[in-house]
């Protein structure tokens, strides 16, 4: 080949390769508000959803326990209903949220009790607040560094290109006031969340390796909650049999929950 052509070819290859390595220089890092809204848009259904949910709780000392439940959620008014199916000791118990009221139902006493959003579901590590439909943009904002800039960067999580953003709570009623979140650049799906306590201690790491598409939106079909406080504790959540049909109003009522618990 002509030497000149060879050099040109080599130069072109070099430019292309260096350009590829530096592609991030030209890829705009979104602002926090924009990013959070896109995450909400990707994951907020805005419709009713019912599903089967199972938790596999792994504890080094106590062993492994499996919990399963039916889950109903109506995003229009932030209502949800959860009916425990297994294990036997929890079967028939339930959790209901309507408006700002969270209720826990106990089958053996047939009583309802007000609970907080930090109440654990059926003795698992999952909190009742985790079952709510929440908009990130309503609850969090970007943390600022010492220069007043939002802490957002581009990084890789395995083979995935992600935005890594550090968030702090805008409101008081969140369980973890600080989060570090990895969001897939292409799909704006949350892949990993590190949840921090108010004092900045890493408490729980959540991994979302698998999503299922549902009518143009995405719901995590499997996710892992790893307890960073008590090492070795982990909860694996699986969501299946997702149905987006409208849920009748009577489902989100105490009488219905009671009737299902008999």
């Amino acid at each position, binding site marked *: 080949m002509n030497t000149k052509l060879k050099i040109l070819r080599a130069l072109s290859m070099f430019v292309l390769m260096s350009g590829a390595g530096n592609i991030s220089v030209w890829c705009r890092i979104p602002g926090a508000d924009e990013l959070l809204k896109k995450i909400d848009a990707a994951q907020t259904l805005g419709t009713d959803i019912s599903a089967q949910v199972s938790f596999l709780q792994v504890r080094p000392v106590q062993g492994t326990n499996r919990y399963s439940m039916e889950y109903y959620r109506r995003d229009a008014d932030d209502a949800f209903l959860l009916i425990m199916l297994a294990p036997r000791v929890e079967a028939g118990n339930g959790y209901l949220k309507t408006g700002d009221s969270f209720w826990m139902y106990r089958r053996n006493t047939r009583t309802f009790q007000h609970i907080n959003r*930090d109440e654990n579901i059926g003795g698992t590590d999952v909190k009742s607040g985790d079952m709510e439909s929440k908009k990130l943009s309503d609850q969090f904002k970007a943390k600022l560094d010492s220069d007043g800039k939002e802490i957002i960067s581009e990084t890789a999580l395995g083979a995935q290109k992600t935005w890594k953003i550090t968030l702090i709570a805008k409101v008081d009623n969140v369980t973890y006031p600080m989060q570090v979140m990895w969001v897939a650049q292409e799909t704006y799906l949350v892949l990993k969340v590190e949840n921090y306590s108010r004092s900045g201690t890493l408490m729980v790491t959540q991994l979302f390796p698998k999503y299922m598409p549902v009518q143009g939106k995405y719901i995590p079909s499997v996710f892992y909650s790893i307890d960073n406080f008590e090492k070795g504790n982990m909860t694996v959540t699986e969501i299946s049999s997702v149905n987006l049909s409208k849920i009748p109003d009577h489902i989100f009522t105490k009488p219905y929950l009671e009737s299902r618990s008999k």
Partner: protein
Amino acid sequence: MNGRIRVLIKPAVRNLVRQYRRNILLALAMALGLCILISASAFSEGITDMMFNKFMSLMCGHVEIAVRENAAVQTDVIRDRHRFEKILRENAEGIKEISESISVWARVLGIAKAEGMVLTGIEPEKANKDRNLFKVYDGSFDEFISDPQSALIYKKRAVNMNVHPGDYIHSRFNNIFGQMEAVKYRVAAVLETESMFQDMAVYVHQSTLKSQLGLKPHETKRIWMYLENPLDALKFAGKIHEKCAPHTALYTGMLSGEKNTEIKCAAAAPHPGFMFTNHLSIVSGSYNAKSKNGVILPDGLSGRYRIGDSVSYTYALKYPNREKSGTTLRLRVEGFYRGIDSQIPLILLSPEVHYAAYYANLPEAPGETIEAYFKPYQEFLAKEWILMRRSSTTDDIIVKYSQLNKKPWKGHAVDVKTMYETGTQILQFQQAIDKLIYIAIIVILFIVLVGLNNTLRMTIHERKTEIGTLRAIGMQRGDVRTLFMLEYMLLACAAAAAGLLFSVLLMAGLSAIPIDGGEIGSMFLNDNRLYFLINIKKIAAFTAGLLIITAIAVFLPARRASKMKPSEALQQYE
């Protein structure tokens, strides 16, 4: 003393000694019965004393003021501690101590093992004065006093979690907002294990824990009072309960719009469930109780503002701090009302706005003058809190809170309770033991009654000749009866004295023996020993009971003996 009785005492004593074996056995039986009664009663008193004065007063004080925030949800926070402490100081007669109760359930992680425990805040200065209450097994109590990030932990839990003085424990708990918090403490000292209840406590500096829970200096979780006489708790609680009546939740501040100058207004929220009527009516716009930023203005301001206008309401805080001395509510005019005439305009916030703003940013008190303007309308306006009725038992407390859960009220609910309501089960336990003791009393006294009666019948039968002789030489019937009564009353007195002595020796002996009660049994032990608390009134009552029963048991046979004719009595001998 009656001359007759003086004369008869000597022969009575002589007769007792004459049949000493039988009388000793009888007296011994009576003494043992009394000993059992006194010891059992003292044990029951001891358990109750430990439960109330050691556990219950540690868990809830003699009298407690608690404020349930957001009424329905289980969060106890007193936002204005000084207000309640002022009420208590103004009614301080009988109060020994007022203290804050700061504690939270936590998951505490030691070396590779975690336990559920209660982080309990204590004031180091107070702890230092009462350091004899903290029996140090290992480590330094002085280090705890000087290090705000240190902790005291009981031996049993320390062993379970494999921690020693100098090690760190990590705790995880929810603060008052429900947010997760994780804190590290250094173990300053390990305390001797007391009981299963106290073992759950990890003591930390109160000010440190308050800050970690998100409480400001003027806030607290609960207020406890310790009284000079714990038995006055119920009466005292009733008095304090009356003093905790709420005022209308009013705040004065400045209202301003985008184009208007500020005007001074008062603000309040309608009472939950309030309906506008002809008397107090909406003249334009609408009232939405669930509005997140709505405000209804008096009709008199309709010239300055229109429906849909954005306005702001700024008021001064009762507890200003470095960050702020006032706060501003961003509101939207949703309507105008008519029906409240006052010197200054009263704007009506939606309950949602009010609940969110009022407790988190306590406003300055409006003053008596302002309160007086709106006194005629107080039934329409939300109060600072709901004052919950006094409860009588633990079950009643549960019913009371479940009724509260059903109300739409989202503000504060104030409850005044004593350790007696909170510890109804302990009272019931004590009552159950008392019932057993009463049954034992009846059984023992019945045995005494029957025993005495039989013994006396036998004695009278054997001493018929003696009775006949005494009557023949001129002893009156009354004297014969008195003689027998005296004999057995003296015996009963000797038995009572012996019974008292036996009980003292028994209680002293049993309480000297160390016992490993385990987790459950330790509830009933004091320092691993049985605990007896002597109640003089009960001892006096038991002793008097014994004497009375003796008198009853002896009276009829003695009367029968006195009615014997000398001729019949002497005829027997022949």
